[in-house]
């Protein structure tokens, strides 16, 4: 029977754990676990239910383009003979990827319709991937749709951004903080950039789209560094994020250099699993029907018995049936304010007070391993970068507290996507796990390594410096926490990350109690589906 939303989507829930609370679902990489939590000192934060999606997406897009915020309607900004560049978010958004048609396709088609009507011939579409890996043809086709791909790619008008193309980048100036601003030459020299965002989390969008997505190492190093990341508290909360302040300064330079941006931002609900066989993963345990429970037991058993490679393939094949909850267009900053409100509307959960021990179950996917392996460095990034920073106000865990994350953390890497990660793991991590020290000793070498550059530009490899950014992403957490325990992780690998391995939650809590005292309070942040804690 389908899940019938006869009730309105419920907000998130903070549930205290007592002796009758059932074990709660926890992701463990590609596997699933049921974890019983200590009674009377634990609580579980459940994400809000998916908001009702917009029924007529086409009408919403038209409305956004015709009545943009603080901008002339798009039609008036298009004219024959102009240079138009449409930039769009890369494969790192949304997660897991969206069921076709992707929202980017719908928006880009709407924009191109208008551009065609206005007689614009010179249109370029750029996957704004900064230092991420180049998207494959299949991924580009999924993002923009076959119609757009077949119309533009053969003419060389649809391509991946290349931040290492010496002729393709242009320096536009320096902020008053001395930060260089460099973006794609094509974009900078266009009469209009239309940037199509998928704002999955509050971090995405705003000036971060253009100033980061279309830039390169030269500009990124000014905010993708340990000092900035330590002072981004959190980088999901723009107004308290040094990362965003820096991007906004760079945006100011872009604006004064005459770069015209028409920003389109979209928000999705958190319906990752729909009504299908995975729907149990989004349900609260006491609401699991007999069918849900049977499905869960079977799925868990099947996953546990698969070889890791097969398991990964099975999980990465999932496409989420997100619904669009808002689309807004116009001036970058004004649009972003509205977008952020819409992201918060879906994701915020009010939480009272901090905790001693914060518990995560890390899933199989992060922004940087679509169709790939969540390697140990990405485990760090997903846990201490993303999950830890999904807060507003104060971190969920107190200063000096402990994060316990559940993930197998095996030393496996995808050599095509993450070549520099392997070297980072073998060369840098045994030397130091301190972001500041590694930045000083190793970052430049990796950023300027010819081989990585070659693989980034011609293959599907993340840029050489990318593993450093992944590590910096956790800088605020490393600074804030007393310790990190990885539950069920490969011990040698976990130690190399600078964490402590534990095989059971009891062991993990025992280790944690060395740092936070006996009988600590525990909060399990039951993410995914995505949410963000509003900590009072």
């Amino acid at each position, binding site marked *: *029977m389908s899940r*019938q939303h*006869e*009730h309105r989507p419920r907000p998130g*829930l903070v*549930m*205290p754990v*007592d002796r*009758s*609370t*059932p*074990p709660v679902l926890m992701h463990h990489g590609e596997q699933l676990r*049921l974890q019983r939590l200590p009674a009377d000192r634990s609580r579980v934060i459940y994400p809000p239910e998916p908001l009702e999606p917009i029924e007529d997406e086409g009408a919403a897009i038209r409305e956004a383009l015709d009545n943009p915020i603080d901008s002339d309607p798009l039609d008036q900004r298009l004219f024959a003979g102009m240079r138009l560049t449409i930039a769009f978010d890369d494969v790192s958004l949304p997660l897991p990827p969206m069921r076709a048609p992707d929202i980017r396709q719908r928006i880009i088609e709407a924009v191109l319709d208008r551009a065609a009507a206005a007689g614009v011939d010179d249109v370029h579409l750029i996957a704004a991937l900064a230092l991420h890996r180049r998207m494959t043809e299949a991924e580009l086709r999924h993002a923009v749709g076959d119609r757009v791909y077949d119309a533009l790619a053969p003419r060389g008008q649809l391509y991946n951004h290349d931040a290492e193309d010496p002729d393709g980048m242009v320096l536009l100036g320096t902020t008053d903080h001395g930060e260089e601003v460099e973006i794609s030459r094509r974009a900078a020299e266009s009469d209009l950039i239309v940037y199509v965002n998928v704002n999955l989390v509050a971090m995405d969008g705003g000036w971060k789209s253009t100033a980061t997505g279309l830039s390169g190492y030269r500009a990124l190093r000014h905010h993708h560094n340990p000092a900035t990341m330590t002072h981004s508290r959190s980088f999901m909360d723009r107004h308290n994020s040094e990362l965003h302040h820096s991007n906004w300064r760079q945006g100011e330079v872009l604006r004064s250099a005459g770069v015209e941006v028409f920003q389109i931002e979209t928000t999705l609900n958190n319906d990752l699993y729909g009504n299908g066989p995975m729907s149990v993963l989004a349900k*609260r*345990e*006491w*609401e*699991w*029907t*007999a069918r849900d*429970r049977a499905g*869960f*037991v079977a799925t868990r058993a099947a996953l546990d018995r698969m070889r890791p490679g097969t398991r990964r393939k099975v999980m990465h094949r999932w496409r989420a049936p997100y619904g669009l909850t808002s689309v807004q267009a116009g001036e970058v900053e004004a649009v972003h304010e509205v977008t952020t409100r819409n992201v918060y509307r879906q994701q915020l959960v009010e939480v009272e007070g901090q905790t001693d021990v914060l518990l995560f179950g890390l899933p199989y996917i992060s922004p940087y391993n679509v169709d790939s392996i969540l390697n140990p460095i990405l485990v760090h990034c997903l846990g201490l970068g993303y999950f830890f920073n999904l807060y507003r106000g104060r971190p969920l865990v107190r200063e000096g507290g402990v994060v316990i994350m559940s993930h197998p953390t095996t030393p496996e890497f995808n050599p095509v996507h993450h070549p520099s990660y392997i070297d980072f793991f073998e060369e840098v991590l045994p030397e130091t796990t301190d972001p500041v020290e590694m930045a000083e000793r190793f970052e430049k070498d990796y950023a300027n390594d010819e081989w990585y550059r070659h693989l980034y530009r011609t293959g599907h490899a993340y840029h050489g410096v990318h593993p450093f950014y992944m590590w910096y992403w956790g800088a605020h957490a490393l600074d804030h926490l007393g310790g990190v325990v990885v539950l069920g992780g490969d011990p040698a690998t976990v130690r190399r990350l600078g964490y402590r391995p534990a095989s059971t939650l009891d062991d993990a809590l025992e280790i944690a109690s060395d740092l936070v005292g006996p009988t600590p309070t525990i909060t399990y942040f039951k993410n995914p589906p995505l949410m963000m804690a509003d900590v009072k």
Partner: protein
Amino acid sequence: MRVRTASLPSLRDLDPRRRIRSLGFPYTSAPTPASVEPLPGPALGDRYDSDWARSPIARATRVVAQETVGRAVTTALCRPRVHNRDRMEDLEGPAVFVANHHSHLDTGLLIGSLPRPWRHEVVVAAAADYFFDTPARAAAAAWFWGAVPMERQRVSRRGALAAAELIEEGWSLAIFPEGGRSPDGWGQAHKGGAAYLAARCGVPVVPVHMDGTDLVLPKGRRRPTPHRVTVNFGAPMHRDGEDARRFSARIEATLEVLADETRSDWYSARLAAARGETPSLRGPEFSTWRRDWLLEGSRAGRPGVSSSRRSVRDRARGNDPW
């Protein structure tokens, strides 16, 4: 040789339900935490959506189940004699089958007695509050009998409207206008739904009288006693310009004639009807031991003699809601 002294596991330990319970979540459901507002339950009662039970697969399996299990049970317990099916010779298209109601066996008996094609193109109006109160029972009723929920206590037209739609789609409807099984063996006053639906959809009503199912498995009894049962089909009835209430009264009267016919003969029943002396199915207005006494007499012609009577004690033990 060593002798094992361990005792055999007790039957309690082998009980699969106990074993599953001891496994706990997720093999059993989890309790709703005290701090949490529970979800509204699944749509049940007259909101139950029984569409799936008319899918080709459900229909095919239902035919098989009715023709095997259903027929076997009916034959074993009732050995039914079906009379006067020839009165339906001229009937075409959907109809509303209206029958008296004494026993859970009535539904199966009625469906099994219907001629094709009606037998497998009929839905049964079943009490929304009784048959559709849990997902499992609702699914079983919808599948095995092709039941659709009909509200009988609350004022609600949801069930009637849904049934009307089905009739318009070509389904026949079997309905027990007494609104429930007889509590004491006497008939009950008809509710107007059957007449209303027939009138609304412009389809004929076929009255059917079943005699003897109260002896097999009356309300309140758990164990059936095999007994011969007679099913008597009346001629299809059309609304004759009268309003639904009068039409309903005419249907009830026709059923009484059919009952009389079963117990005497066709011509005697016609004569009694012409004289206005057809015995009422509802029984006398008083409610003492004499009601039971008279019931015995109405069937056997000799009050208080039969030995296969169900006793008042049987009925008093009943804890059914209806």
